[in-house]
């Protein structure tokens, strides 16, 4: 038997856990007591991680489409085919005819080399991570306002917060370890304010639960800012010393009206007042919101950051923003530059000095124009110029708001897929390159609290299987690039040169304790628990004026607000969940109860309309109508209809015809099928 500390790769928390192995099999898993992120806790997924490790359904040899069917070939043939075909397409159609998508589950090393292949070998900025559909709002706003697109504080520091604001995300289900940290902070005396439309386990524990109408967050935060200003609870010293654009912001906030905001949001004015005062009076307060599935609009994130700046809640222990990445390496994948507009380290692609720096490191010219976004590529079908697509652990079927991708790629000259299992995408891919999996490779991931940490190799993979980064290297070499990486640590060495805030993150350093939180530099090798702690660099933050949104009244004939969000329902699609018996059972409950999917309606509303649980209803909007099965639950607010992402029928018929996808859609609920 052997025990190895490693990182759980289910979600963005990045819990430290030990894997126990014997005879090249993972036989057990348990949490690390000392890891700062989870301190002895993991969730149900972590406890069952050993069940997946040895699924016999794993792919072991590359597959190449010959005579319309995928056939097993040897590695040289597969690599040779991909390299040759990529060269041909680049030469005939230009580099921008090729695009790369990866999953926010891919490692830092895999991602770094994949975008390097695109930019330095092919010559295109057509790189994006699959959840780019959601998360770029947070990256863009945070870059703009505080200069760093990441959580500014740490999970463990929640213990030092006197007030905690949770916006929207169902922490108990999506990021349980953080949910637990929040509940325990509350038990120790922190004031817990939960804002959101759906009631969930953490909301049950809140001191204040502001159950607001969907899409009214901006108004709520604006009104809170107004209360803070009116009562003089702002941190003027902090604002004067470190913030810009305060005047503009001030002007805009004055327009907010507490009573009107309360009406818009559907909560009491006292509730808003109490929340604002609790937040502003805290010595240190943290705000949590999701950058993934439950993503917020740019305006909402701006409004949140304004509140943070207004109260000086940055740069001290227990204060700050926890922008939550729900997927395990969403942060790292963005850090590595898997973004069509940003190079590794978030430098814009159209910034000549930034390009020049990388050009000298990579010894090549780099393209200057931003590439295609995943969203426009998949959802809008804006891919006429594309001839080839490379998907790294990415399955379009798992992206919300995206139609079946099959039709989109049928005319492509090349579709490459790096996968563990055969997926739906196998129907239209030309080459499948199976890779090593969790526990079979040593790579690094960056958690939602900027913690760069290692996932260790604890068992030997099947013969021939190798990590993504090695496959990318082989193909780059076949295309004439002089790449030379023997280990993942070598790749990290180069990442340290390309991304300044990773410069101290050598594998040796990362292995010493529990990874390092970036910035982790040569001067600051132990990493950074919370950002902006020292003002030496003269950090300057910028308020962003957010105009008060018009009060959206509902037309009489459409009295419900329909909104989209994430639900556990579709976790059955998750590759990792599908291959663990216990998780499959747990995450299939909803699916078994509602085999055709569901939309949620408040119990009282349902009673009034005479709608029973499991019954068919029709949702009618000004632009169209859709059928759905009702799930009657007290978890959603009265007057709202909650639609889980991936309910394709409703997505297609209602979301796609909506004017603004970030705004709730006014609907009417009718009993029975249309």
């Amino acid at each position, binding site marked *: 038997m052997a025990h190895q500390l490693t990182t759980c790769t289910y979600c963005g928390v990045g819990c430290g856990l*030990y894997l126990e192995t014997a005879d090249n099999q993972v036989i057990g898993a348990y949490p690390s007591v000392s890891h700062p992120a989870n301190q*002895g*806790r993991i969730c149900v997924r972590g406890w069952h991680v050993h069940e997946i490790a040895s699924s*016999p359904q794993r792919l072991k040899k590359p597959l190449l489409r010959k005579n319309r069917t995928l056939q097993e070939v040897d590695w040289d043939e597969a690599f040779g085919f991909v390299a040759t075909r990529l060269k041909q397409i680049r030469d005939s159609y230009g580099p921008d005819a090729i695009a790369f998508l990866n999953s926010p589950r891919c490692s830092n090393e895999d991602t770094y080399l994949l975008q390097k292949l695109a930019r330095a070998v092919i010559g295109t900025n057509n790189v994006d991570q699959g959840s780019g559909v959601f998360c770029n709002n947070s990256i863009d706003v945070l870059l703009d306002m505080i200069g760093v697109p990441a959580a500014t504080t740490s999970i463990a520091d929640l213990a030092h917060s006197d007030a905690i604001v949770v916006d929207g995300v169902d922490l108990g289900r999506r990021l349980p370890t953080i949910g637990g940290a929040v*509940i325990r902070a509350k*038990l120790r005396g922190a004031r817990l304010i939960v804002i959101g439309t759906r009631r969930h*386990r953490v909301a049950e524990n809140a001191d204040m639960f502001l159950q607001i109408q969907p899409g009214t967050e901006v108004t709520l935060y604006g009104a809170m800012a107004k209360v803070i200003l009116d009562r003089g609870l702002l941190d003027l010293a902090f604002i004067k010393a470190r913030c810009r654009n305060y005047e503009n912001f001030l002007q805009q906030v004055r327009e907010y009206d507490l009573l009107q905001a309360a009406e818009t949001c559907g909560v009491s004015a006292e509730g808003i007042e109490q929340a604002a005062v609790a937040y502003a009076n805290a010595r240190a307060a943290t705000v949590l919101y999701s950058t993934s599935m439950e993503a917020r609009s740019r305006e909402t994130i701006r409004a949140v950051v304004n509140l943070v700046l207004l109260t000086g809640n940055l740069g001290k222990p227990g204060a700050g923003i926890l922008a939550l990445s729900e997927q395990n390496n969403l942060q790292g994948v963005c850090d590595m530059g898997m973004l069509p507009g940003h190079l590794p380290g978030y430098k814009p692609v159209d910034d000549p000095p930034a390009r020049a720096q990388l050009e000298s490191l990579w010894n090549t010219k780099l393209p200057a124009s931003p590439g295609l976004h995943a969203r426009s590529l998949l959802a809008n079908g804006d891919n006429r110029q594309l001839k080839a697509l490379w998907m790294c652990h990415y399955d379009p079927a798992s992206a919300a708001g995206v139609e079946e991708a099959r039709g989109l790629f049928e005319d492509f000259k090349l579709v490459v897929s790096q996968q563990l299992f055969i997926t739906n995408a196998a129907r239209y891919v030309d080459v499948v390159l199976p890779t090593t999996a969790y526990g079979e490779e040593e790579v690094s991931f960056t958690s939602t609290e900027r913690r760069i940490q290692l996932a260790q190799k604890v068992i030997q993979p099947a013969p021939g299987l190798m990590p993504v980064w090695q496959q990318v290297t082989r193909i780059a070499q076949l295309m004439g690039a002089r790449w030379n990486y023997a280990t993942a640590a070598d790749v990290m060495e180069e990442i340290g040169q390309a991304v300044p805030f990773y410069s101290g993150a050598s594998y040796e350093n990362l292995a010493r304790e529990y990874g390092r939180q970036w910035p982790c530099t040569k001067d600051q090798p132990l990493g950074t628990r919370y950002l902006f702690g020292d003002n030496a660099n003269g950090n300057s933050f910028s308020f962003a004026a957010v105009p008060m949104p018009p009060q959206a009244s509902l037309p009489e004939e459409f009295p419900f607000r329909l909104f989209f969000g994430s639900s556990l329902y579709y976790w059955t699609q998750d590759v990792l969940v599908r291959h663990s018996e216990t998780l499959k059972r747990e995450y299939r*409950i909803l699916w078994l109860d509602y085999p055709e999917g569901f939309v949620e309606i408040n119990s009282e509303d349902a009673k009034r309309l005479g709608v029973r649980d499991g019954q068919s209803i029709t949702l009618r909007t000004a632009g169209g109508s859709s059928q759905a099965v009702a799930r009657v639950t007290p978890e959603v607010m009265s007057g709202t209809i909650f639609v889980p992402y991936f309910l394709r029928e409703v997505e297609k018929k209602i979301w796609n015809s909506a004017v603004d996808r970030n705004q709730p859609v006014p609907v009417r609920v009718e009993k029975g099928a249309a």
Partner: protein
Amino acid sequence: MKARVLHESDVLSIVDILRQRGYEVLAPFRGHGRDTYFDTVTDLNRNQIQIHLPNPYYPPKRFVFPHIERLMKAEGSQGDLRIRPTYEAPKRAIFGIRSCDLAGIYHLDRFFLGREHSDIYYEKRRRNLLLVNLVCTDPERDIGKECFCMCADTGPAARDHFDLQLMDLGGEFMAVAGTSAGEALLANPIFRKGTDEHIARRRAILERLRTHFESTNTSWFSAAVRYVSQGKVSDKTWEEIGQRCLECGGCTYVCPACTCFTVADRQVGPNEVERVRVWDSCALGGFTRMAGGFNPRRAVHDRRNRRFFRKSSHYFIQRELSMACVGCGRCAAVCHGDIGMPTVVEMIRRASAQAEAR
């Protein structure tokens, strides 16, 4: 029971002796930070074995009741079906098992081997297992802040269920044999006869240790057991407890006395299936859900209620002649919402006090 003493420097020789006799010896080691675990002793790590350290969090129950265990293989082709049980029962010794975990294994014995059906997989592993108990004597390193073996009457010094018990008397260890297998070990020349002074020292240490348990929540443990047994805990209290449960299952997985499992089939070859059992947890929503959708314990607080009732009701204590809570405190350390046994005892106490006040 036969008692001997041995010099501190000879303690690890017991591990060597066991290994020479063909045992795979599992002993506690340190990981990162405060992390500790039981691992197989090899020539390489033998000197890193720790005598005093926080009790490993991943319970040693897995050596008799593994986290995942194959039960059988079935091969079927052309209308044939062959089913072959798969047993694995290495000759093992756990060196340094704490008294609470010993009580846990005793509980598993009562549960898996007792009543009308005996569990052959457990039985085979258990019959090949030797237990060298170590008494927790170091207040800093051995006794955690969640420990309550004193209240559960399982420690710090176990009275039985071990093959051999070791206790640090300072410079020397006292060794007590609990079985003939343990007694056989005492024949080795490293063991000497003890004196009355040794026995006095043992008593003094145990007496002093009583003051080193931090958790006062569990002082009401026996009363909580009575309240739970008699159904005197209100639904409201269970709802408060349930509200803090994030349904991770951790409390049951780290519990030395939790026994629930589920069974799953996995395809391992074109015509071959293996049937495995894995730890399961009453905290999970799918635990009681029946095919067809009916779930008698859909609400999370019903499931919490269930766990504490199963652990601490008089009925089950009598049924198994052993209690399914051994006072190790692991559930408190593992819980996201801080509703391990000590907190639950305290919540029941507080609710009862409030009810009386009204």
